[in-house]
């Protein structure tokens, strides 16, 4: 919804701009060509798009954009071409060209002007060509980028004009690459060869596609050009390999962060308190569902929803944790294996509870715009924002937990109680409340993990089960009772998994990791960071 609103706002701005500039072609001509977009088949629509593009009138831009987004309709009664925006159960419609509001109509009064992928590609090109001379720098830059793969040399004059006028150095550079890529595709041979050489080292994937196309006999008859394209591509790829390694490392750290997020709450409830908490996964699940509920309650604040969800999820899962501790787990201290059974029962109940409340279907959690997409370090290495956010988030969370355990009075009490309950109690610490709060704290952390994981995976009743086994592996591998062990364990497993995946495949990689854990535990029966000496025996 939100995205549509933003789109609409942008649309109106563009419309205003379009109306301010005098129309270079007659309004009737434009209108006819817009009408032609409503052709019977996709081929007809494609022709209509080309015809519209040929007018080179920026006024057509909003129409094409609306068509690309699937918001262009024909009003059945008036045969007018309109832009429709869904409002509740009907559509608010605007005249396609003038942008004049035409009121609200029922869906069945409209016929959608459908597009397919091929048309969408065509539209992107047309919009790109039109946008080259208009809009802001970012729009021009992305318009130029869009031209790289699909455009043919006929666009070169327009591109040259745009390049000549371009003030921004960065945009001009992008246009230069686009120009070389387009030149490489056809025209005079020496110019093509020069253009291909100019593309060496450009890590842009689209450019590599162009080179790849040129290097194949099926696409390119000229052997010399093929050879140069192959050579250039190889050189570019070689420089990309280094980034490939960086990418693998990033994948590994990112997987490690996910494992760490999932395990860190368990490192407290299981590692510190000794509760074999099979309901840990369900605490994560509750956090993820909290995110969903927050997004439902505040549909207008999707961008901030995660920021709101983090504390709320902590409180929700934490509260459930405290209730569980007070009602069940406190009866089971000193019987760790029995906590396994009780918490297993609890996990079944919680799963079925969300099934009853939220239905067994997965819930859709929207990714805020600032977490979508990728940070392009260069064209060969792009770090996706959601992964990047989660890595940073995980480490911030980790530091906060470590600081809390180390410096706060709660942390001090918690450590005191877990190390020597009787002594702590004798010193006036209310051990049962510390227990409840510790368990609640661990559960709350799991809830926060749920908020982050809702951005990566399904939010459904099975969410918790996916992570529970891995979480235990991480905690045990790292060494029970040691948060830094858990961290290092998660990172080791994450990176090892990602390094192995390309040659072993995802499944075999995971099996090898498990076998590795089993063998590792033989060598270090208490994990990576084991307590030594007398303390280990109690």
């Amino acid at each position, binding site marked *: 919804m939100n995205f549509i609103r933003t789109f609409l706002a942008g649309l109106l701005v563009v419309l205003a701009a379009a109306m301010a500039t005098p129309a270079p072609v007659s309004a009737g001509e434009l209108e006819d060509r817009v009408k032609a977009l409503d052709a019977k088949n996709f081929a007809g629509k494609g022709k209509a798009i080309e015809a519209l593009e040929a007018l080179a009138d920026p006024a057509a831009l909003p129409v094409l954009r609306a068509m690309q987004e699937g918001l262009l309709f024909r009003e059945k009664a008036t045969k007018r071409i309109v832009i429709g925006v869904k409002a509740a159960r009907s559509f608010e419609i605007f005249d396609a060209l003038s942008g004049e509001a035409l009121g609200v109509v029922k869906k069945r009064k409209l016929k959608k002007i459908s597009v397919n992928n091929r048309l969408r590609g065509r539209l992107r090109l047309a919009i790109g060509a039109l946008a080259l001379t208009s809009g802001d720098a970012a729009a021009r830059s992305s318009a130029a980028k869009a031209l790289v793969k699909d455009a043919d040399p006929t666009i070169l004059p327009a591109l040259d004009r745009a390049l000549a006028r371009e003030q921004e150095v960065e945009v001009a550079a992008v246009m230069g690459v686009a120009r070389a890529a387009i030149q490489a595709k056809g025209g005079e041979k020496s110019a093509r060869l020069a253009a291909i050489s100019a593309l060496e080292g450009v890590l842009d994937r689209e450019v590599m596609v162009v080179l790849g196309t040129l290097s194949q006999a099926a696409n390119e008859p000229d052997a010399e050009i093929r050879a140069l394209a192959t050579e250039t591509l190889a050189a570019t790829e070689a420089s990309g390999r280094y980034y490939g390694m960086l990418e693998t490392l990033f994948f590994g750290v990112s997987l490690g962060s996910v494992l760490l997020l999932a395990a860190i709450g368990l490192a407290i409830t299981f590692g510190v308190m000794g509760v*074999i908490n*099979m309901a840990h996964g369900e605490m994560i699940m509750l956090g993820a569902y909290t995110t969903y509920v927050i997004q439902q309650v505040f549909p207008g604040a999707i961008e901030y929803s995660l920021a709101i969800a983090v504390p709320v999820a902590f409180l929700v899962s934490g509260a459930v944790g405290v209730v569980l501790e007070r009602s*069940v787990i406190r*009866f*089971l201290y*000193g*019987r*760790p*294996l*029995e*906590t*396994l*059974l*009780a918490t*297993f*029962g*609890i*996990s*079944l*109940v919680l*799963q*079925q*509870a969300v099934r*009853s409340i939220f239905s067994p279907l997965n819930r859709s959690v929207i990714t805020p715009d600032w977490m979508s997409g990728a940070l392009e370090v260069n064209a060969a290495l792009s770090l996706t924002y959601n992964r990047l956010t989660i890595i940073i988030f995980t480490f911030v969370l980790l530091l906060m937990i470590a600081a809390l355990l180390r410096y706060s009075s709660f942390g001090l009490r918690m450590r005191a109680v877990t190390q020597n309950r009787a002594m702590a109690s004798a010193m006036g610490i209310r051990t049962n409340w510390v227990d409840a709060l510790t368990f609640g704290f661990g559960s709350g952390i799991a809830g926060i993990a749920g908020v982050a994981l809702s951005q990566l995976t399904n939010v459904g009743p099975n969410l918790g*089960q996916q992570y529970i*086994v891995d979480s*235990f*592996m991480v905690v*045990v591998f790292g060494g*029970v009772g040691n948060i830094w062990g858990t961290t290092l364990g998660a990172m080791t497993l994450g990176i090892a998994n990602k390094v192995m995946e390309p040659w072993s495949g995802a*499944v*075999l990689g*995971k*099996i090898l990791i*498990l*076998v590795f*854990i*089993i*063998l590792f*535990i*033989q*060598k270090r*029966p*208490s*994990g990576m960071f084991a307590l030594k000496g007398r303390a280990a025996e109690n």
Partner: protein
Amino acid sequence: MSATNISLRLLGNDTGARVFLAAIIALTVLVPILNVAVPPDSPFHVPTYAVSLFGKYLCFALLALSVDLIWGFCGILSLGHGAFFAIGGYAIGMYMMREIGPRGVYGHPELPDFMVFLNWTELPWFWLGFDMFWFAAAMVVVAPGLLAFVFGWLAFRSRVSGVYFSIISQAMTYALMLAFFRNDMGFGGNNGLTDFKDILGFNLQANATRITLFVFSGVALIGAFALCRFIVASKMGRVLIAIRDAEARARFVGYRTDMYKLFVFSVSAVLAGIAGALYVPQVGIINPGEFSPLKSIEIVVWVALGGRGTLYGAVLGAISVNALKSYFTALAPEIWLFLLGGLFVLVTVALPRGLVGLRGQLARRRANSGALKPKLAERDPAS
């Protein structure tokens, strides 16, 4: 002073075991008779549906027994026992696949359907020999036993114990699950082995075969119970309990605790394998789902619910949980998980010694009628 005098004490209450044995024997004898000899319209008739259902329960009971032997008496909590069960099941399943012979969907004389389908041209080496029943039967015992031996040897020798052992046993079954899911492994992938037709030439869908399998399951359970009782009542049983409660101390007295654990772990795995081998022909399918860590946790839950360290408690737990599951999934499909989950919580909190401890607990409450602390002697030993 005599040995029996001492061993009786080990079982806590011997009448429990006797009543249990009588009940299982009665079930093994009565169910087939009531199914075959009693006309279907009689209220005493046991339908075939119930026979195969009970047969399944008996296999689960045997599996639970195997877990109780190591957990209840030796303190080894295996969260991967489903793996041994599944391997036993795969062994007999492979035999039954080979028995299909040319009657498969594609009519290949030797290869099972799923192999034809995945373009295998010849039988992989690990399928050789499974056309002979004796070989498959041997594998039912050898394969889980060997896996347990190797795994246990690695783990016990380096003194991996407690929660660490539980988690790596879980890792073991998880890894096996992933491996068996892989179609490239040659065990039928996710679908596992199915479409069985007969065993030793007897049609699996014939009532007589079903009854026979049921009786075999009953006999196996009784036999395994006797074996487990023999083990725990011998001096071995005392060593196991000593290891459970104070392993280090047992070592200082001169017992090679790793070897004892290895022994009993392997025996337990073999029993689990046999349970799997009896289970598969009765349900008609074996697939990697049996390796899933959750299944193994479920087994532990049966044992805990029935009451561990008594052998018959494990059996009682397995049968009652599964009977409840059968009942609830039909009666209250939407809420049965609430009931089952709630029951687990209730039993762990309120009945630390499981269902079999219920009587003792009630008796004590009547005697004390106050909330006295349980005597040390009655404290739960394995925690």
